[in-house]
């Protein structure tokens, strides 16, 4: 029995090693007994942009926290290049659903926060932080405090901070939800190129969103979560060339497929 388990785990690990990030057989309940997931599996391949969609309250944010090691699954495991994730690490950076900045630090200092963690010298840290700010289009705004910035600029600071940590994986929880549509569209167009530009070590992205158009615009692979407790009810591969045109027929076919997975919603209210 024990040997079987060990063999099972070894096989799981071997399989997971082929992926950047791999979540296998995840079960999770909150302390109050509310069961959020049952047997959820997610794989992120090399340089893959993965999206997770699902109705509100289904557990998308919870899933990201499990992927990042912030929450421990009751069953199953998360692997980063085959190595099990047991606690949060700078290799996997979470960008929150709400925009998180530190009001007592300037934009530059906010970004430097993640560099000092890596034990680099102050000058190097500052240089890298300036680079990251430039990447997100904030050069010239380094010395502003968050309160002096718009929501879109703050989210860029948060993204720059995440970039500066040089993670292998990005977990993004509705990164555009608090931005006005114009700003969101601008960032959306930039984000793919920013993330997979040659000078980031980034190997994979997981994006949570309830905006289906956004997801089809960005993702290579889309997981659909539904039911209570939630499972992966569908997986859609998007093989369209970038930049994608939301008015094209293929695009809308994929959208329709997603809608089909989400309706009728089998969500029981508790």
């Amino acid at each position: 029995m024990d040997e079987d388990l060990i063999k099972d785990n070894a096989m799981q690990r071997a399989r997971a090693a082929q992926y950047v990030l791999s979540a296998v057989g995840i079960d999770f309940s909150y302390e109050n007994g509310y069961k959020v997931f049952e047997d959820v599996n997610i794989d992120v391949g090399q340089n893959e942009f993965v999206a997770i969609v699902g109705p509100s309250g289904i557990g998308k944010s919870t899933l990201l926290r499990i992927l990042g090691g912030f929450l421990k699954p009751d069953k199953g495991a998360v692997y980063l290049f085959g190595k099990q994730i047991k606690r949060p690490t700078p290799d996997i950076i979470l960008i929150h659903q709400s925009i998180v900045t530190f009001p007592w630090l300037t934009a530059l200092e906010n970004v430097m926060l993640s560099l000092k963690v890596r034990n680099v010298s102050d000058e190097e840290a500052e240089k890298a932080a300036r680079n990251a700010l430039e990447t997100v289009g904030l050069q010239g705004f380094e010395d502003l405090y968050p309160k002096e910035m718009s929501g879109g600029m703050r989210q860029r600071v948060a993204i720059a901070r995440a970039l500066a940590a040089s993670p292998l994986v990005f977990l993004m929880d509705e990164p555009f939800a608090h931005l006005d549509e114009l700003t969101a569209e601008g960032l959306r167009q930039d984000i793919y190129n920013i993330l997979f530009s040659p000078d980031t070590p980034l190997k994979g992205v997981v994006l949570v969103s309830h905006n289906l158009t956004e997801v089809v615009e960005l993702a290579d692979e889309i997981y659909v979560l539904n039911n209570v407790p939630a499972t992966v009810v569908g997986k859609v591969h998007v093989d369209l060339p970038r930049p994608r045109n939301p008015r094209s027929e293929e695009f809308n076919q994929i959208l329709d497929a997603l809608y089909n997975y989400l309706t009728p919603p089998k969500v029981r209210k508790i």
Partner: protein
Amino acid sequence: MNEILLITLAALATAGRVLGLILISIVTGWFLAYAAIKGKIFENIYISIIEVFESVPVISFFPIVLIIFVTRIGGPLGVEMAADFLVFTAVVWNIWMGEYQAFKTVPREMLEVAENYQMSFFTKMRRIFIPFSYPRIAANLFPSVSDGFFYITVSEVFSVGVHTYQTFGIGTVLDSLAASDKTGLIYMALLILAFVIIIIILGLREFSRYAVSRYTVDTDAPIIRRGRLNVKQTTRLLSVVARNPLSRLAGYYRSRVMSRPPEVFEKREMRREKISRYSSIAIGFTILGLIIYSSTDLIISVSHNEWNHLFSITPKILLYLLYDYARVGVILALSFVIAIFLGYYLAMHSRAEGIGVPIIQTLSAYPPPIYFPFIFGASFTAIHSVLGPFTDEFYVLALGFVSTFYYIFYSFWMGVKALPSEYFEVMKNLNMGYFRRMRSIILPGTFPYLISGISSTINSAWGGLMIGEYWPDIIPGRNLSVHYGLMKFIDIETNVGNIAMAAWGSFLFGIVVAIYSIIFTRRMMDLARKRYVAEEGVFAA
């Protein structure tokens, strides 16, 4: 048996005094708060008075108490009123402030409903304002109870010159038990008092839990944002806030900042702040002037020669004050360091927190002036053999510490609890070490709370010093006394009946402290409000 009954009655009398005075504060506060939100001028004056008095240690009221209540009114009634007045000044300010904040932050929609129905004053009070103020009252009850117990036990018995004035209560009973050396009964009295205090604390916790779950409107709590907390967590966090004994600031600056609508008001607000600053300085001086005025006959009766003497001794008084500030500094530094380690630890470990916080709450209400002599007696020989001539100084600092540590501890602990959960995730995500977390996130993020904790700590440290710097017969046959210190000076002058000198000393003291608190505390609060509001760091639609 009779004596145990007596002790129980005394403990109940003391508790009754504290609770009764708190009740009076609450009821008067409702009406004053209503007047304040209705009239701009009254509001400015009222708030300024509270702010100044909040920052003036209770002991500066001592001479006024002696003069008005003991000398003028006199008799048992005068002594009773003197004790009550001292306690009242200890408990009232934060309750009044809390109620004002509550009234000020009643949602506009509710007020519109009230107008729509043309509610009368009493209906409005009963249905809207008073219920709305419960959570803040609950939050402010803890520090008030602690402060009240601290001062009541020392104000029940005091001596001026050859006279000893006393009024019935646990302080008096303990005093007479100690004088007749009845050790067993003393322990019994301490136990009974502890029991009474635990009951009160448990009751308060229940009340604040109830008040929070029943009377809190969501908009009142900026830390709660849509999509981040579920209802269960919401009440948990709120009860943390409500449980905190020192939310003077939390609420205060919340009412000023959080619910601030568009920037159009900014300018008017700034002018208002300026006006209120000047008026509070003016009022501070007026009140100090009144203290002096109230002792007019004293001043008139003071001869020319004596005045010369008072002035000539002033440099010495200021020097003594410097000594005392140094002591306060040491006490503050020690409290600060311990509060930060312990507070952070408890905030991060929920099981330890569940046990630790109620214990600390009970301890904070248990008045150090009552139990300190026993600690002194038990440890004196050991400490003396180590510290030699510094022994007394050590005990004074220790007394100051136990009188005051809780304030900064609670403020900080509450600040940590109020930090957005996202911050903790970022810290974990970036793998930050302990000191990095402290320096970059926790300390700046709790800065406003720390400032309020620090200013309360400083205020209560004075109370500890007043008692500790000169304590004749702390245990039979031994005095606790420092070499130099303003509190000792005032104590001794009061004790030998030289009221003029004592009043002069506390007058100078009051001025320095008021100026300090207006300039320093306010400046820090402004800074805190400008940049260190962690709740604003998380942007949610």
